[in-house]
């Protein structure tokens, strides 16, 4: 009898307290969260000296765990070193300081990713980043570069050029270079997402990567044989990417066939 009398008040007390506890916990979490926008994230110090714009942005991404999406990068801008020294600043202020040293770049934040762009970039049908995918799946956990460099192009290609039924034996084989197998992402089953949103989702899972569009603005409506984007992982052995990315970008930008690699 005594046990019952004790249990009932406790039970009712729990019922009464649960909603309050839940809302209190939510309030506490909201109070404890840093500013929601990645652009407002505070930075004690940021220093780069004589780096290219790309390496400066990647330094910021690596230092502050900020995923990046670079939709526009003129290879000529990789040849000119820049220097930035800021104290008591923010991610947004650093991005602005880097981009201000080159003409024509814009930036915004989407899905927690800092996106670098250009006012002249096409949109809609003329930009594959805007292409809506009914579905994107990784079917389990997989390496980031496998998802970005293999799965996403393959699944995008399926919607651009649906495969024709074939009789007999058919297969695909490949060799995807680069990447770190320990950077696992997924499993993902996304529906009605744009290509840009998929890329953002993939690089923001561990906040340790950037995707970089390789083709010039006029060629964003097609998927080159060797890919439209390259993903740079912040924990890759290289800490300077300008030389490598400059070579890749120049190949795409100099190609008259719309970015098809030589």
């Amino acid at each position, binding site marked *: 009898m005594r046990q019952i009398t004790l249990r009932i008040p406790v039970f009712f007390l729990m019922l009464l307290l649960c909603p309050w506890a839940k809302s209190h916990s939510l309030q506490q979490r909201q109070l404890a969260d840093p500013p929601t926008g990645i652009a407002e994230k505070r930075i004690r110090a940021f220093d780069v000296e004589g780096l290219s714009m790309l390496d400066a942005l990647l330094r910021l991404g690596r230092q502050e765990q900020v995923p990046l999406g670079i939709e526009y990068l003129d290879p000529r801008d990789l040849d000119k070193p820049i220097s930035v020294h800021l104290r008591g600043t923010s991610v947004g202020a650093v991005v602005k300081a880097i981009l201000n040293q080159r003409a024509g770049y814009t930036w915004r934040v989407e899905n927690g990713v800092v996106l670098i762009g250009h006012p002249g970039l096409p949109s809609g049908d003329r930009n594959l980043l805007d292409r809506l995918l009914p579905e994107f799946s990784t079917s389990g956990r997989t390496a980031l570069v496998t998802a970005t460099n293999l799965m996403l192009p393959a699944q995008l290609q399926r919607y651009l050029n649906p495969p024709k039924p074939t009789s007999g*034996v058919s*297969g695909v084989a490949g*060799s995807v270079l680069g990447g770190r197998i320990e950077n696992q992402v997924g499993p993902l089953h996304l529906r009605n997402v744009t290509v840009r949103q998929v890329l953002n989702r993939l690089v923001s899972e561990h906040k340790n990567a950037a995707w970089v569009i390789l083709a010039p603005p006029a060629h964003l409506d097609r998927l080159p044989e060797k890919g439209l984007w390259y993903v740079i992982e912040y924990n890759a052995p290289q800490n300077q990417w300008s030389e490598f990315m400059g070579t890749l970008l120049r190949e795409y930008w100099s190609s008259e066939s719309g970015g098809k690699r030589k």
Partner: protein
Amino acid sequence: MESAALSAGGAGWLSNLVSVATVDNLLHKGQVKGVSGGSAGISADWTAFRYSLNHITDECDEIVTSKRGNGTDNVKPKITSISPPRGLIGVTTSVSISGSGFGGNPTVNAGTGITVTRGTFNDTQIQASFAVASNAPAGNHNVTVTTAQGTSNSDKVFYVQVPYSATFISQISATTLSQAQCSTLGGPPGSAGYQRWVTLELRDSASQAIQRSGVTVDDQLTPSTPNDLGIGSGTTGSTGTDSAGRWPDHFYVCSTVCPGSTGQSNVNQSWTANGTGLGHVNVVIYKCNSITVDGH
């Protein structure tokens, strides 16, 4: 007189360079001879003074030895080592040359196709940049250092590396691919297969690793025979080497005859490094339950 000069050195004798320089000056002027016998004029503690004199004498000996023995002024330069001893064709490598007799405005020569820019130097080391032209002869280049005293030995070499192969180093992981996985990889409907991550290394024709970060490597797959898995297309790509000249390569295959078939598809994997084709082509054998690269 000599005693007076030493007394003026005071407590600094034991430790500071000014005192040594003073003695060094005296040495050159031939005034040191009387030091050991000049104790009469010194009233301080004799033991401490004797210790000081011994110490100064030791330092004097070292100075005399280095001035006379190792000779910076009258000796031909000699190269003992070059680091790194090799570099990639078409790029600039920072090189450190060690040896002796480099004082006095040395010039460095590294043979045909290598433009040398000398940086800082001292008697035993020279920092230099070796800009290797893209048409420089491959292999050993004799390096010499020339000063007013003559030209050094030429038996130390800088080896110009020309990329030749993407060589299998080790396996990272390997798993089978289900139909669902092959679907996400762009495989034909109903296909299954296999995937394998390996590490490759850029090497020259002498099978030496080209240990340079950021070399752009790029591959191309061409199906050959047999082609039992019906491979019609494949994904390839580009990446940069790490500082050891290595990179990971993720091979995969999806076929409608997998997982049951025991057949195989041979595929030639050709490479470029910084845009120039490599002499060696890898043979990749894709099967439903294995992938081998040049037999590994």
